[in-house]
């Protein structure tokens, strides 16, 4: 791997007496799709929150393209090209789908006409064209996730996209649509992805490498086949070997 686009070293996050992340190191190369797996409570979302500025680390360093971003506000981090989605989709319910997608675009001083064209193209690729001008609150849970994933792609300077459980509670058709969007943006813009998910089939199709977290630490890192055959991963997370 050449120099990583996203690198975190020694990240620590404590909530009162509980240490959610206890010295986490992770390095993701440009254009890579990195999966993060681990049992509930392993600290995956805490890690994502620190990387994206939602939580402030107690210790450790985060570098994006070599520049430190630890402790910056989420909007400042998004401005540097690191964008995230939330497990519970945050959409602007009273605004149309197109308007929802314009917010991240215009925040970066994009042009309105270009932004709208781009938003409609993306909504089309997300198979939501029929609903483009409907308020987002009319969407189903799965469609909201899709809209939120699409919103990240509107960020003009997107370099790293962190997706927190984008496949949870989503039907298979929408899962495939999300995978298509990821593949296209990766191919066309060389976007790097960090994906947190429990869906092992999807992670096998999607990710170059997997980082396994257990109890606030990185247990190991490797291809899905490598980590899935590790007895510690089977014991702590998978329960039984993957076939």
């Amino acid at each position, binding site marked *: 791997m050449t120099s990583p686009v996203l690198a975190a070293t020694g990240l620590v996050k404590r909530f009162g007496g509980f240490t959610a992340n206890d010295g986490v190191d992770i390095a993701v190369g440009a254009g890579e799709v990195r999966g993060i797996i681990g049992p509930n409570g392993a600290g995956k979302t805490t890690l994502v929150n620190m990387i*994206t500025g*939602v939580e402030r680390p107690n210790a450790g360093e985060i570098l994006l393209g070599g520049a430190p971003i630890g402790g910056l*506000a*989420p*909007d*400042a981090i*998004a*401005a540097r090209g690191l*964008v*995230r989605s*939330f497990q519970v989709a*945050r*959409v*602007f*319910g*009273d*605004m149309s789908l197109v*308007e*929802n997608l*314009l*917010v*991240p675009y*215009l*925040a*970066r001083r994009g042009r*309105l006409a270009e932004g709208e064209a781009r938003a409609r193209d993306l909504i089309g690729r997300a198979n939501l064209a029929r609903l483009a001008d409907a308020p987002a609150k009319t969407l189903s849970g799965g469609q909201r996730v899709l809209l939120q994933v699409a*919103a990240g792609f509107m*960020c003009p300077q997107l370099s790293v996209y962190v997706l927190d459980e984008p496949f949870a509670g989503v039907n298979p058709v929408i899962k495939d649509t999300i995978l298509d969007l990821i593949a296209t943006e990766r191919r066309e813009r060389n976007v790097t992805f960090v994906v947190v998910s429990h869906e092992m089939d999807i992670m096998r199709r999607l990710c170059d490498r997997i980082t396994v977290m257990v109890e606030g630490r990185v247990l190991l890192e490797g291809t899905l086949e490598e980590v899935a055959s590790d007895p510690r991963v089977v014991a702590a997370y998978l329960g039984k070997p993957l076939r």
Partner: protein
Amino acid sequence: MFSAELFTQSLIAGIVIGIIYALMALGITFIYSIVKMINWAMGEFYMLGSFVQYFLVVGLLGPDLWWVAALLSAAAVFLVGWLIEPVLIKPMFTGGIERRDDYATVVTIALLLLMRNLATALNGPYQRSPGTNLGTVMLGPLPESGARLAAALCALAAMVLFWVLLKKTWLGLALRASSQSRVGVQIAGVDILRLDQVAFGIGVGLAGVAGALLAPVFLVFPTNGVVTTTKGFEIIVIGGLGSIPGAVVAGILLGVAESLGAAFISSPYQNAYGFVLLLAVLLIKPSGLFGERMRHA
């Protein structure tokens, strides 16, 4: 005694004053929906607007240029709000404050006391009026005070401008988005704290416009914001907190209720009719006419 003429006249007078009340309520509800706080010092920004208007008209521009003075008053009040916000309101989000509602209540009530007493110290207890050259206007057979009518038309214009800002501009898009999800706009790359600052300025600016427009109608004195603030909050509860159409509709309803009550029931109780309306709405629809039931996420 019921007369159709008196009824029409009272109705028009009520709508006229209601539109200006609505401006005040709009400011309260707008700040609430973006910054998620109640600004209890709203009436003091109204007072500030009326004083700026008074001094501009009396000292500088003369009563014929009242509309220029009103624009300048609005800008001045916006600026004061914009400067105060980072000092007083912003720490609500950046200072590690756990009970934000309590914090906002305490600082805005402190601000209210400061502004009111500062005005009393500087102005004395005197009641002033900038005067007006606008005579009585006949609406058909019915007379209406020119200053009131002009104030209502300008208030209407301010509302249209506000609506255009919200619906047609990038700032409006960001403001509408942040009223729905503060975290959502942040991850979209919007600096929510700067947005708060602008929203606070615009919200108090609306109160400032109301103060400037009503300066020749009601009097200008350090506590003249008290009654309008009360009306503003009545309107918010009637219309539904956080609802912009609710603020406009309820503002006009309140104006009409007061005006008709004063004409046909008893005029000394003018300020009480709004509360009757308020109680009726609370009995029938406690979330307000346009309010949605609150859900905390």
